[in-house]
């Protein structure tokens, strides 16, 4: 196959919030930048974020970044790196105000400032009471943000390659990153994007689970590409199950519903969160609420004929508040649950939502790997931001509204680092290896030539069912062990996928087969990392690591206060220390403590 070569200063893969924010930095600095995206930018999954973006603006209640940092570290169950968390919380006001200046239509307070609402796990004065920290545009914050970022990129003349799917990362013999291969959907043609800097902003891989709030496109493309190229994946055992996916449909209902006063109820109408989180109740952090809901359901207090969900009740809110603050939720409830939340509660279940782990980075957005005794040695030419990256600010559990903040802060930071490295002359256009496209071409040739193979649909379904059953909200040693074996079998089947569509033009079957390769890397990383971590922490809770006086909540800091690193080759695991030291002297380290809400 003929492989065209295109050369840029920088190539960004992904045009969601993180990719667009990074692109803005590069375009405005005058770097020749290509942004590859497999969907038109405003179709990226940032568009589906609802409830808000965190920033301690203090527009409605007193607030400061110290409190935000404390909440984030506690929310992460101390697995988050405190330097990155300090950086993010300190930068929050700046990046949110920038968006307002770009034209983002935030809701407003009576005095004209950005409207803020309470959100799970966010508190004032180190856990005392809920704080209003989530900056919101109704319940369409992600949509408003993504469109504002795209619009600003239109103004900056950013060059997009729309409906181009990145295939593989190109590294040379030194391990340096030289760009990616990518396929244009409309023609099926493969090109090499050769660049001094490569930025991954490819989002998450929530589609490894059967029940997910995630879009079809959330297939972990960057994470899979990195893993295949020998980059380890960090903390992949930590997946967030959002408490309120619409039962049966999986579609997200924002935590902002509870921020506006919504209450979770079991079959007897009890506000059960009072028992699990006496202080913050329905606004406890997501892992806590999802476990409480699952426990209610498992113990027979679920709702409906099959007792398989709980109810999210906002019937006590005024219709006016619902129409003004939660109009999109009302549409979703009517469309996907068949109920008008003004009149009846919404059936909800915990649903896979967010990947806390990902490609290891530092707070500057540089991809870092263990090398020569340094656990965090930057990979030359490689950067990542947003859900595909692990900075790590979310640790073992992310707080709601911190994902939109993450993609703004680290999208910008990665962009700034690329610009600095470019302007200092540190970034070089290294020569492409002769075999730069061979891996991608071999994958495509294998797929085109496969006979008597496996259906992409069937293998994908088996993967999703396996993940759902073996690595869910609660985890069990025996199920995890079995899960490792099963996902290995699924991975073997995925090597023999066959498609019948042989067209060059917009071949969805080919795209889905290539996406499955990426999902499989993520699924393997998740299962193997989860099986190995013999403690409970944040979103990873095991039956054999219960709450004891020595190990509160089952967390075993003596042995497991460390980041997992999973290598695709040989399913190998490694670990690196958590950074408990903040970035500056402005703040003391947040000391380890038992998490209660």
């Amino acid at each position, binding site marked *: 196959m003929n492989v065209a070569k295109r050369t840029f200063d920088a190539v960004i893969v992904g045009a969601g919030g993180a990719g667009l924010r990074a692109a803005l930095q590069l375009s405005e600095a005058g770097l020749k930048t290509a942004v590859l995206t497999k969907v038109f930018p405003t179709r990226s999954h940032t568009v589906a974020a609802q409830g808000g973006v965190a920033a301690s603006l203090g527009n409605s209640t007193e607030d400061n970044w110290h409190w935000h940092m404390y909440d984030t570290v506690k929310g992460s169950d101390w697995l988050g790196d405190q330097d990155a968390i300090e950086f993010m919380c300190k930068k929050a006001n700046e990046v949110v105000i920038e968006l307002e200046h770009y034209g983002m239509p935030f809701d407003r307070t009576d005095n004209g400032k950005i409207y803020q609402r309470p959100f799970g796990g966010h508190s004032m004065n180190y856990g005392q009471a809920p704080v209003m920290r989530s900056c919101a545009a109704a319940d369409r914050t992600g949509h408003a943000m993504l469109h504002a970022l795209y619009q600003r990129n239109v103004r900056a003349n950013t060059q997009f390659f729309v409906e181009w799917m990145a295939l593989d990362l190109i590294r040379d013999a030194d391990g340096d990153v030289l760009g990616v291969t990518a396929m244009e959907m409309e023609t099926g043609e493969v090109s090499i994007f050769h660049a001094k800097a490569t930025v991954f902003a490819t989002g998450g891989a929530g589609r490894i689970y059967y029940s997910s709030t995630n879009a079809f496109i959330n297939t972990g493309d960057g994470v899979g590409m990195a893993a295949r190229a020998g980059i380890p994946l960090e903390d992949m055992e930590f997946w967030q199950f959002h408490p309120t996916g619409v039962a049966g449909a999986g579609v997200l209902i924002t935590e902002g519903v509870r921020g506006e006063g919504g209450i979770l109820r079991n079959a007897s109408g009890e506000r059960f969160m009072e028992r699990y989180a006496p202080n913050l109740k329905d606004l406890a952090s997501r892992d806590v609420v999802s476990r409480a809901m699952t426990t209610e359901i498992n113990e027979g207090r679920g709702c409906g004929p099959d007792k398989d969900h709980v109810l999210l009740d906002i019937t006590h809110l005024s219709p006016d508040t619902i129409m003004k603050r939660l109009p999109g939720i009302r549409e979703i409830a009517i469309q996907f649950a068949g109920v008008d939340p003004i009149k009846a509660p919404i059936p909800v279940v915990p649903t896979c939502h967010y990947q806390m782990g990902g490609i290891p980075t530092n707070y500057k957005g540089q991809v870092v790997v263990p090398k020569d005794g340094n656990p965090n040695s930057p990979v030359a030419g490689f950067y990542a931001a947003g859900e595909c990256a692990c900075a790590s600010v979310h640790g073992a559990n992310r707080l709601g509204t911190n994902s939109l903040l993450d993609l703004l802060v680290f999208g910008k930071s990665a962009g700034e680092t690329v610009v600095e490295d470019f302007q200092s002359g540190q970034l070089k256009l290294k020569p492409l290896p002769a075999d730069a496209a061979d891996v991608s071409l071999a994958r495509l040739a294998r797929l085109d030539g496969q006979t008597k193979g496996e259906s992409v649909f069937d293998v994908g379904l088996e993967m999703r069912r396996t993940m759902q059953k073996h690595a869910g909200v609660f985890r069990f040693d025996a199920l995890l062990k079995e899960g490792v074996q099963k996902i290995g079998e699924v991975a073997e089947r995925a090597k023999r996928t066959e498609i019948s569509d042989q067209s060059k033009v*917009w071949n969805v079957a080919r795209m889905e087969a290539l996406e499955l390769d990426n999902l499989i890397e993520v699924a393997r990383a998740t299962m193997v990392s989860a099986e190995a971590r013999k403690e409970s922490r944040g979103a990873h809770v095991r039956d054999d690591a219960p709450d004891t006086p020595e190990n509160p909540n089952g967390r075993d800091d003596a042995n497991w206060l460390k980041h997992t690193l999973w290598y695709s080759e040989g399913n190998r695991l490694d670990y690196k220390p958590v950074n408990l030291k903040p970035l500056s002297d402005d703040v003391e380290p947040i000391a380890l403590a038992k998490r209660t809400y």
Partner: protein
Amino acid sequence: MTKRTVHFKIYRYDPDKDEKPYMQDISVELEPSDKKLLDALVRLRAKDDSMSFRRSCREGVCGSDAMNINGKNGLACLTDIDSLEQPVTLRPLPGLPVIRDLIVDMTQFFKQYHSIKPYLVNNDPAPERERLQTPEDREELNGLYECILCACCSTSCPSFWWNPDKFVGPAGLLAAYRFLADTRDQDTNARLDNLEDPYRLFRCHSIMNCVDVCPKGLNPTRAIGKIKDMMVRRAV
């Protein structure tokens, strides 16, 4: 709920092998959990993986899966499959070049969107904090900013069919008014100049197909009327 079968008539065209487009009769058996047209199409793809369409969020916010459903534009993910008369006839969005099956080339649509300068213009030095806006002024943006750029409206508009290169179309004009209505934007005159042309704005004849099909319940015709009002007010 029992299993049910849905019969489709679907526009098929693969330029790699088909001399010309054709309508394919095809049926699919649904699972009880399949509620939306998109669920049925995904089920269909498991049967015939060459069936091509765009999709992503499956909840009506990304705007990918717009198509012509029984003669009317809409989003597959927000259309109840049981509400549709059978056979369900699916065609690509009208008036745009077809790339393959239900996938259209949206270049012209986005070109028009870009032509209205879809970004806030404010040349004052950026303040340290947010620019203030009253809740009432912010409310002016409701019904405008929620557009998902699915193109259901513009591709149901006869004026856009006849002059896709000259008429901005309902989606682009809705976006234009979104910025005209924003108290933070300072580019009012230039924005109006940009639309003062026999085609760009004035090809709208208030047929209101756009309003009829918008999956988000938005009203481009009203926004266009408001732009026309601003032009008149500016002229006197």
